[in-house]
């Protein structure tokens, strides 16, 4: 792994809320072009870690370098330029409720890429199609969309500026299995086509088995193990054993093996 280039380098991260500490001395790397899944129990600080990396929360201690630059030390405009290379899919989509789906995707194109409204909306249509949203939904407001459609629309918005790093916070939560599998494939395709690096928070074991290159297990306030699935699943920690070799873990493993044989 040492030969690979890190796009995100987190070193010695500590996050505390009052007296409660969520991360202590946490190190994590995201390499170029990989899909890294971060797993951990509820409340293990996965979302906090994501928020720290994308700059929504300043960690109490530690340093996060993105493309070799420390975000916290950059000036406002440089920082904004780096942040434009992020695409973030929030857990509940976070679509702007006063804009239609197309306008949601067109907004960053108009603001940052300087496109005209017509061009931006046309391109937004392409992104929505790429994310697999049916055409009938394009002119709707987020309030009238289903959960799966909101996820897809939010993915289209995250992809609007063709980011280098895609952050996904539980992308398949709340989707039906068919939709979730399609979403996994979509992420894989987009990664291959766009050369994205993907930082993925998930509880979905099928996602872990089908699309991830590496898995980082967040436990005991730090990254317990990080590596390919086979390596992580062999770790001796009881939580990891329960996670990967519990009933759901075994089912997902069988499914992945079967799918591999059919291919």
């Amino acid at each position, binding site marked *: 792994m040492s030969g690979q280039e890190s796009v995100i380098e987190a070193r010695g991260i500590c996050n505390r809320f009052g007296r409660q500490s969520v991360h202590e001395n946490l190190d994590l790397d995201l390499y170029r072009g990989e899909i890294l899944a971060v797993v951990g129990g509820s409340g293990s600080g996965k979302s906090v870690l994501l928020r720290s990396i994308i700059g929504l929360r300043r960690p109490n201690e530690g340093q996060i370098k993105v493309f070799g630059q420390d975000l916290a030390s950059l000036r406002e405009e440089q920082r904004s330029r780096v942040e434009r290379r992020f695409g973030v899919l929030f857990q509940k989509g976070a679509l702007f409720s006063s804009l239609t789906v197309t306008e949601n995707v067109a907004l960053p194109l108009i603001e940052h890429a300087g496109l005209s409204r017509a061009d931006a909306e046309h391109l937004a249509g392409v992104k929505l199609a790429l994310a697999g949203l049916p055409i009938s939904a394009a002119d709707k407001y987020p309030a009238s969309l289903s959960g799966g459609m909101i996820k897809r629309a939010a993915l289209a918005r995250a992809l609007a500026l*063709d980011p280098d790093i895609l952050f996904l916070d539980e992308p398949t939560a709340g989707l039906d299995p068919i939709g979730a599998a399609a979403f996994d494939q979509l992420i894989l395709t987009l990664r291959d086509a766009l050369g994205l690096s993907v930082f993925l928070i998930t509880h979905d074991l099928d996602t872990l088995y089908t699309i991830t290159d590496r898995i980082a297990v967040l436990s005991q306030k730090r990254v317990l193990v990080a590596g390919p699935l086979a390596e992580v699943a062999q770790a001796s920690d009881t939580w990891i054993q329960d996670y990967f070799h519990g009933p759901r873990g075994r089912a997902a493993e069988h499914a992945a093996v079967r799918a591999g044989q059919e291919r």
Partner: protein
Amino acid sequence: MTLPSATLDTSSQPACLRITGDWTLAHYASLKRDSERLRAQYAADTVADLSQLGRLDTAGASLLAELLGAERLSLCTDELPEASRALLRNVYCSVQDYCIPVKEPERNVLLLLLERIGCAVGALWQDSLQLLGFVGVILETLLRRALQPHRWRWTPVVAHIEQTGLDAAPIVALLTFLVGAVVAFLGATVLADFGATVFTVDLVAFSFLREFAVLLTAILMAGRTASAFTAQIGSMKANEEIDAIRTLGLNPMELLVVPRVLALLISLPLLTFVAMICGIVGGAVVCALSLDISPAMFLSLLQSDIGVQHFLVGLAKAPFFAFLIAAIGCLEGFKVSGSAESVGAHTTSAVVQSIFVVIVLDAVAALFFMEMSW
């Protein structure tokens, strides 16, 4: 770095479309111009040459897909790296069954205006019907529960009395004190011309006992409590908590609405009384400071000139206002649908409606009391 472009090379047979440079979002506008111009020019048998294509992103890929079409693309992508080929294929497949829907043509402004007026009138009628229906349901629930004292829910009632009454007392007191002082100042200035400054006492007492105390309190409650009720019930509705209450076999009217209505029915008259006292005290302070009417004299004038019926007329209106404010606040909460935005819209609507209703009702009551010469 070469600028990205698409050029038509007609020297060879068949003609060849040369695609060069980075087809990325940064060059979108110029590339789009180029490709639109070329699309009209090239013949059906033109081939494409993508060998000099640089970087490619979704924006560029969508332009290429539109410019070249599926068949031509599938013929010429062999020399591209696998990633770009996959991207082009994906974008093409999605664009194919996806075109931007045609926007409806603009309609006549006058017609739109008429339509909006019609919709507004319709909505007003529906809202009024709904409010009347809701008032009916509240009364029915209240009456039914009145016969079953063991099912009265005192804890939420007391909690709401604290929130709507006790917590609002300071602001009501301060506000009415200031308005009382202002009314006294006005009276002192105008009545001085007639040498009748002593009637300032009557002015302050009459206006506060009959109108100002209850009206100011009700308007404050409309802004403070109706909005709070809407936001509380509305966020529960958005969070599907109301549905949960129903599926547990409980009655949201009994659980949420009745305690709030009862609480406001108790606290608004009490606050009105506080407002009366404070307004009159405000007047008395101004009288003592600028008109040389001592508090003792103020009180004796009050006692001799002002009948108790004025106090009763003012206080009698308070329960009606309280009932309507609580009903409107709760009803708007129930109308919330799904989103947080809707909670905000209905909160605004609750405040506007309840202030409107309070003032209209007060005007009607003033006419009624005048005709009855109470």
